[in-house]
């Protein structure tokens, strides 16, 4: 089950509104390589995992991704909070605004609503772990592209933090893969019929 810790994993204090940036960052909320996709993917795949290390890794990284989802929602909220209608119009955020005002809605930067088609839960733990490693790389790249678009340090620092987390998660999934591969190889070795 989940318990909510009433603080952010990393502090977010954005003083300058920027609806343009908000309309891009939303992609890490509801987009193909975003934090909602990540948490749903890992929290769904954990049911098929073998070995205690892999179960714990999927469970706990999935949980941390929810904390990241919260950070992204927070960033978008703070970036639009005091934006005027004119600023929204000039920024290109008007299409999102007419459907959602300044609310947080899971969609990509291009406006596609979130879909489970962004994730897979294939059952085979090897297959799932490779998908997870790929997901972390895609997220890292997305954060880099977002960072290329940002110039406010209050936005840059949390994005850098989130980018680094993806690299660490990749390493942990890679280590889990090693353990699962080793387990399956040993299992095969010990169940092979004696000559």
């Amino acid at each position, binding site marked *: 089950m989940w318990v909510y810790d009433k603080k952010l994993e*990393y502090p977010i204090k954005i003083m300058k509104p920027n609806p343009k940036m908000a309309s891009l960052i939303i992609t890490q909320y509801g987009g193909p390589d975003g934090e909602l996709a990540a948490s749903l993917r890992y929290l769904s795949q954990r049911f098929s995992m073998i070995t205690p290390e892999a179960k714990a890794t999927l469970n706990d990284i999935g949980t941390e991704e929810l904390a990241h989802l919260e950070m992204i929602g927070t960033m978008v909220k703070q970036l639009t909070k005091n934006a005027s209608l004119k600023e929204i119009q000039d920024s290109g955020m008007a299409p999102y605004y007419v459907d959602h005002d300044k609310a947080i809605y899971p969609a990509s930067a291009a406006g596609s609503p979130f879909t489970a088609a962004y994730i897979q839960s294939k059952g085979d733990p090897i297959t799932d772990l*490779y998908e997870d*490693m790929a997901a972390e790389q895609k997220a*890292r790249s997305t954060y*880099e*592209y977002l*960072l*290329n678009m940002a110039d406010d340090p209050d936005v840059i*620092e949390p994005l*850098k*933090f*989130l*980018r*680094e*987390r993806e*690299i*660490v998660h*990749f*390493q942990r*999934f*890679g*280590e889990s*893969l*090693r353990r699962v*591969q*080793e387990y399956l*190889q040993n299992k095969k070795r010990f169940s092979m019929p004696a000559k």
Partner: protein
Amino acid sequence: MVINSSSAMDAAGMEKPCVPQETVINNVLLAHAYVPFEKMCTTFSPLSALRKGTAFPPLAAVYMWQKGMGEMNYE
């Protein structure tokens, strides 16, 4: 798989420096990918860790990124 203690001594009784990862992977199979295991040596202080996004220095040192790298060609 053996994990060495971080205070291993070598033949001369000198303390070996801690290597923060596996450097050799044995018994590899085709069609399998292998990420080297990290090994904890030193860590950042909690506040540094928060700023950098990880407690582990070697994980902060890979995939170095600079703004504008996006303009490079991948060819």
